[in-house]
C-alpha cells in the first residue's frame, strides 16, 4: 500500500513542461509525500463478483527501489513475503517453503487476485523522466479543488502512453489518476481518499485501484498504520529475510 502511494507520488517530480506551474505542483507533491523510509500496515480489500476478501500486510520501503512486504492475514496468505529490489521481484510462499523470482509473463499476473498486477509495482523511474506534463484544467473532487495534469510519454518504453493526475490545490496530494493506452483507451483509474495529516504530511489513507476494462469495484488499499523516516534494518531488504 505504502509502496503504491509512494510510487504514485514520488514519480510526480521535476517535469519538463511548458507550464512552470506543472513542475512546481509536482515538486510540492513530492515534498509532501516522499520520505526516505516508511513502514506501513495496510489492508487490501479485493472485491469479487459475489464476495470480498481482505489481505492485511506490513510493508517496509526505502526509496523507490527497495520494498519488502509480509502478509499477515488471512490464514491462507499469512507468511507470504515479497521483496522488490530494483527491477527484481521475489515471492516467498510458506506453504511450499520456496522463493521464486517473478519475471516476464508472471509479472502480468494479478497480485493476490486484485486489480493490480505485479508489474504495476515494478516501475522505478520517475514520471518526470518518462512524461511531459502540463496543467490542462481544474476540477473539484469531493469538495476539494484540484488541478488536472496531463502527462504524455516522451520516451518509447513508458508502460502507459499517457496519464492524467488530479492534484489537490492546497494539500498537494493526488486525488485521482487515470492511465491510458496508446489508443487513448482508459485502462486504470486510482482514486485516493481520506487524506489525513500524518507527521506533518498530508497523506491519503484510502486508495481504490481499478482496472477499467474489468467489471467490479476494483481493489481498495486502506492504511491502518504508517510511520515515516524510521530506521529499517538492512537485512529486511535481502533475500534472506524472505525465509525468516
Amino acid at each position, binding site marked *: 500500500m505504502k509502496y503504491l502511494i509512494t510510487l504514485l507520488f514520488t514519480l510526480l517530480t521535476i517535469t519538463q513542461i511548458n507550464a512552470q506551474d506543472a513542475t512546481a505542483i509536482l515538486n510540492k507533491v513530492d515534498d509532501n509525500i516522499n520520505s526516505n523510509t516508511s513502514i506501513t500496515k495496510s489492508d487490501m480489500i479485493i472485491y469479487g463478483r459475489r464476495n470480498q476478501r481482505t489481505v492485511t500486510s506490513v510493508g517496509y520501503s526505502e526509496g523507490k527501489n527497495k520494498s519488502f512486504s509480509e502478509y499477515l492475514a488471512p490464514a491462507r496468505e499469512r507468511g507470504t513475503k515479497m521483496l522488490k529490489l530494483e527491477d527484481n521481484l521475489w515471492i516467498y510462499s510458506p506453504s511450499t517453503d520456496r522463493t521464486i523470482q517473478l519475471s*516476464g*509473463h508472471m509479472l*502480468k499476473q494479478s497480485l493476490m487476485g486484485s486489480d493490480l498486477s505485479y508489474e504495476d509495482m515494478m516501475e522505478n523511474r520517475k514520471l518526470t523522466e518518462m512524461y511531459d506534463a502540463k496543467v490542462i484544467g481544474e476540477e473539484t473532487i469531493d469538495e476539494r479543488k484540484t488541478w488536472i495534469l496531463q502527462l504524455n510519454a516522451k520516451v518509447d518504453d513508458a*508502460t*502507459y502512453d499517457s496519464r492524467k493526475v488530479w492534484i489537490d490545490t492546497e494539500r498537494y496530494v493526488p486525488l485521482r489518476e487515470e492511465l491510458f493506452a*496508446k489508443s487513448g483507451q482508459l485502462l486504470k483509474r486510482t482514486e485516493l481518499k481520506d487524506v489525513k495529516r500524518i507527521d506533518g504530511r498530508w497523506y491519503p489513507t484510502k486508495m481504490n485501484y481499478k*482496472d477499467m*476494462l474489468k467489471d*467490479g469495484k476494483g481493489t481498495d488499499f486502506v492504511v491502518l498504520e504508517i510511520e515515516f523516516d524510521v530506521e529499517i534494518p538492512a537485512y529486511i531488504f535481502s533475500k534472506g529475510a524472505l525465509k525468516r
Partner: protein
Amino acid sequence: MKLAFHLAYKNLMGAGLRTWLNAGVLSFAFIVIIFYNGLIDGWNEQAKIDAIHWEYGHGHLLNENYDPYDPFSIQDGYGELSESNQNNLTPILIRQGNIYPSGRMMSIKIKGIAANQKTLCLPTHLLNDSSAAIPVIIGERMAESAKVSTGDELLLRWRDKNGTYDAATVTVAGVFETNVPFVDGGQIWMSIVKLREMTLLENKTTYFVANEQFKQTETPGWKFETQEYLMREQTKLINAKKVGGSILYVVLMMLGLLAIFDTQVLSIFRRQKEIGTYIALGMTRWQVVRMFTVEGAMYSVFATIIGAIYGIPILWYLSVKGIGFGMSGSEFGIILAERMYPIYGIGLIVGTIIIVILSATIVSFLPARKIARMDPVEALKGKVQ
C-alpha cells in the same frame, strides 16, 4: 502330421460345447486386442494428420530465443529472416495480451499469421474477407470459454515492443473447429501484418511453419524442428497408452489360455486309454504329445474363425462409424477427436493371430508333456498315473 490334425479336429468337434466355450473366450480376447490396438492406431493416425494440418505443417523453423515450452521466451523470442529464406514458410508472430469478454480478464496469446497462407487448415481467409478494423479468428473452445461467437467484439489489450500498453476492439471474424488444442485454447489469431503494426515488430517472426516443398538449410539464429520431433510428445503418450492397454489384453489372453490349459489337463487325465491305444498301435509318445498339442492349438484356429465371424462386422462398423466419446481431448490438452475411427492394419491382424496361436500352442504343449512320461501299459488299462 496330417493324421494329428485330422484326429485333433475330430476330437474337438466331438467335445461339442466345451470346444466352443474355449474358442469363444479366446476369440473375445483376440477381438479385444485387435480393437484396442486399432483404436490406438486410429487415434495416432488422426492425431498425426490433425497436428500436421493444423499446427506442425512439415516442420517448424523457430527463432533460437523462442522455446514453445517456455512462456517467458515469448517476449524476446522473435527475429527477422531474410525474404529469400522465407520460401515455403508461413510466418507466425506470438505476443501476449489480455481480452476482456463480459468484463472478465483472460490472459491469451495473440498469434499473427499470414492471412493468405495455405499450409495450415486455419481459416485465415476470413481475416481478409472481414471488413472489421481488427478481425480475429478463434477456436470453438476459446469461443466457449470467452462466451463469444462470430461477429462479437472484444476488447484486447497488449504491449508493443517497448512495453507500452495499447488496447483496441477486435472483431471475431470466425470460429473454427479443430481437434488440436494447441491452436485453440487461450489464443486468438489475426493477420501478422496487423499484429506487427500493433506491436511495432516490423518483419519480426516467432516461428515459421514449413510446407511440403520446404528444403531445410542452415539458417543462423533459427532452428528447425521436424514433424517427428514436434510429434514426439503425442507419440510418447500413444505408446504409453499401448503399454497400458496391453495389461488389459494380457488378462483376457490369460483367461482364454487358462481355459485351454485346464481342458488339456482334463483331456490327458480322462483319455489315458486312448493315449495307450495310440501307442499300442505304433505311435511314439512324442507323436501323441504332438497330436494333443495340435488339438489345443486348434482352439486358437477356431477362435480366429469365430472371432472373424462376429468380429469383422463389428470392427468394420466401428471403423466406418467411429466411436464417440462425448468430449474432446482438447479439454485434456491432447489431440483427440470427439469421434475416433479405429484402423486395423494387416500387420496388427496377422500379428495378433500369430500371438494367439503361438500362446495356445505353448499352453497346450505344457500339460501334454506328461504323456511322454506315461507307461503305455498302465495308460492302456486306464490307470491313473
